[in-house]
């Protein structure tokens, strides 16, 4: 009875719920009675773009992508775009990628010739170079480097001069500057370049591709031009890894220091002369006693023959093989002699006295036995 009442109550509740959720067809105009919410409207005081009007026809062009073509393009796509058209080569996406200090760009700049004509330095500059002290490895008459940067470089060059047999001097130039042809290298740094093994780097700041590199004649005669050219090229390429001019200079100086120490170890015969010995400076062309090393020299140098390239290794390998063969032959002869000696020899055991026991004529014991299962 109670269950029947529950079922009927549930039925009425479901019927009432269905009536309340079903949209009534007989009241279509009831929604009109509700108040319509107003849309926002543009006013003259609003910041930003003026409100477009349908008469301008600009509304669709701002909703669609500017350069959209094809089926997605609206009817007004044929109208002139506000922004200029993309370049023909189609690399417009590269505009959004930041350009880093890449080697490619640096290489491009290296091959570029300066658009601005070079200007020769004045007589004061030359005089300052000549008056520079012998132990000042950094000559910067125009003070193109800040004091701290110059001091860092000076410390590096002084340290290198203490560690290496080749002292390196840096003569700094400003951008678009060049040295006069009448400059006498023998007078630079109070004539220090004529003493021992030295090298001079004329470094235009920010333009590593214009670097000029001079070395003592004793070194250039002992070392191949190709080696020196490759060394010079490697230093320049390493400096071009950086974009900052000061960092370029630091990289160049560091790499040059390393390369000079390599050079010293690879050609020890070239540094037989004393560090402070004075070179006789002949009259005439200064490049004869202090020749310039260029990266192009490495490319134009005659190729080294295969025999010259492998001669040292072949000689060492021959000595090693000969020594090894001699040792093996010596060991084999010893082994053979020992075998022959053992074949010709016999071993005699001492005669021992014994007493017979257990009735045995020749043996009196049971020996040793074991099981192996």
């Amino acid at each position: 009875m109670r269950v029947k009442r529950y079922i009927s109550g549930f039925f009425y509740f479901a019927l009432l719920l269905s009536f309340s959720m079903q949209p009534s067809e007989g009241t279509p105009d009831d929604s009109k009675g509700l108040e319509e919410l107003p849309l926002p409207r543009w006013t003259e005081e609003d910041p930003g773009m003026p409100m477009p009007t349908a008469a301008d026809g600009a509304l669709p062009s701002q909703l669609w992508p500017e350069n959209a073509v094809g089926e997605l393009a609206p009817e007004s796509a044929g109208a002139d775009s506000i922004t200029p058209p993309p370049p023909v080569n189609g690399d417009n996406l590269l505009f959004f990628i930041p350009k880093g200090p890449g080697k490619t760009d640096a290489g491009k700049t290296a091959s570029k010739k300066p658009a601005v004509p070079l200007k020769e330095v004045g007589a004061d500059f030359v005089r300052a170079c000549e008056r520079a002290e012998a132990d000042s490895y950094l000559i910067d008459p125009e003070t193109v480097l800040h004091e701290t940067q110059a001091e860092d470089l000076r410390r590096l060059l002084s340290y290198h001069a203490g560690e290496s047999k080749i002292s390196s001097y840096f003569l700094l130039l400003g951008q678009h500057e060049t040295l006069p042809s009448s400059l006498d290298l023998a007078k630079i740094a109070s004539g220090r370049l004529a003493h021992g093994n030295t090298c001079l780097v004329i470094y235009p700041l920010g333009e590593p591709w214009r670097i000029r590199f001079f070395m003592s004649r004793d070194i250039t005669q002992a070392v191949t031009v190709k080696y020196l050219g490759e060394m010079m090229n490697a230093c320049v390429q390493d400096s071009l890894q950086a974009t900052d001019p000061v960092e370029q200079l630091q990289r160049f100086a560091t790499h040059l220091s390393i390369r000079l120490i390599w050079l010293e170890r690879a050609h020890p015969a070239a540094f037989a002369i004393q560090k402070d010995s004075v070179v006789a400076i002949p009259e005439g062309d200064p490049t004869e006693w202090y020749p310039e090393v260029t990266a192009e020299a490495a490319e134009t140098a005659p190729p080294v023959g295969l025999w010259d390239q492998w001669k040292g290794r072949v000689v060492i390998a021959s000595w090693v093989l000969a020594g090894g063969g001699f040792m093996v032959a010596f060991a084999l002869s010893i082994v053979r002699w020992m075998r022959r000696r053992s074949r010709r020899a016999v071993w005699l055991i001492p005669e021992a006295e014994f007493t017979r026991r257990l009735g045995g004529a020749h043996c009196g014991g049971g020996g040793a036995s074991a099981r192996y299962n």
Partner: protein
Amino acid sequence: MDLVHLDRVTDAAHCLRLREAQHVEAFLEDFERRFPQVFIAVYLGVLPQSFSVAELSFWLLNHAAFNHADAGKLNEHAAVLIIDPSAKAVGLNVGYSLEPFFPVKQLNKIVQAMRTPLWHGEYVGAIELAVRRVEKCLKRVACRAPAQKPIAPPPSAEAFMNGSGLRALRRSEGASIVEKDWKNASRPGQEEEIF
């Protein structure tokens, strides 16, 4: 009891192949060349249950006549190695002359070292191992001496012909050559056919 005849290697249990037996025999001969006073005999056989390897080695050393190059060697200088593959037992015994150099402890070491190759059925390896150990022990007490084997020329032509191994096809009247050929020794009557 009468003496028994025994070779360097006696394989009564058929444990060794022909090549292995020849190899062991050559190995023992080399040992005898290096130690001319000493010889080693190897016996592989299945023993009755009432007979141990120690007893057999004792009996063999006292009653066996070993076949080796120098018949003058006495059994006091012999070492006998007994292997029983059925009972899986191994024994080593030496004569009176070798007893001072091979105490029981040393013999036990040699026998114990042979157990592993014998367990794997490597009879040749076990025999070689034992011989090497014996050789090593002997070298500690032996002294090296140059091998002296005097070779005297035959006193007469007849003695040369007798000892050369050459056979005459026709008998000479004045000479009486003794035919001594081991190949034809087992085939009597062949001489008559030739002549």
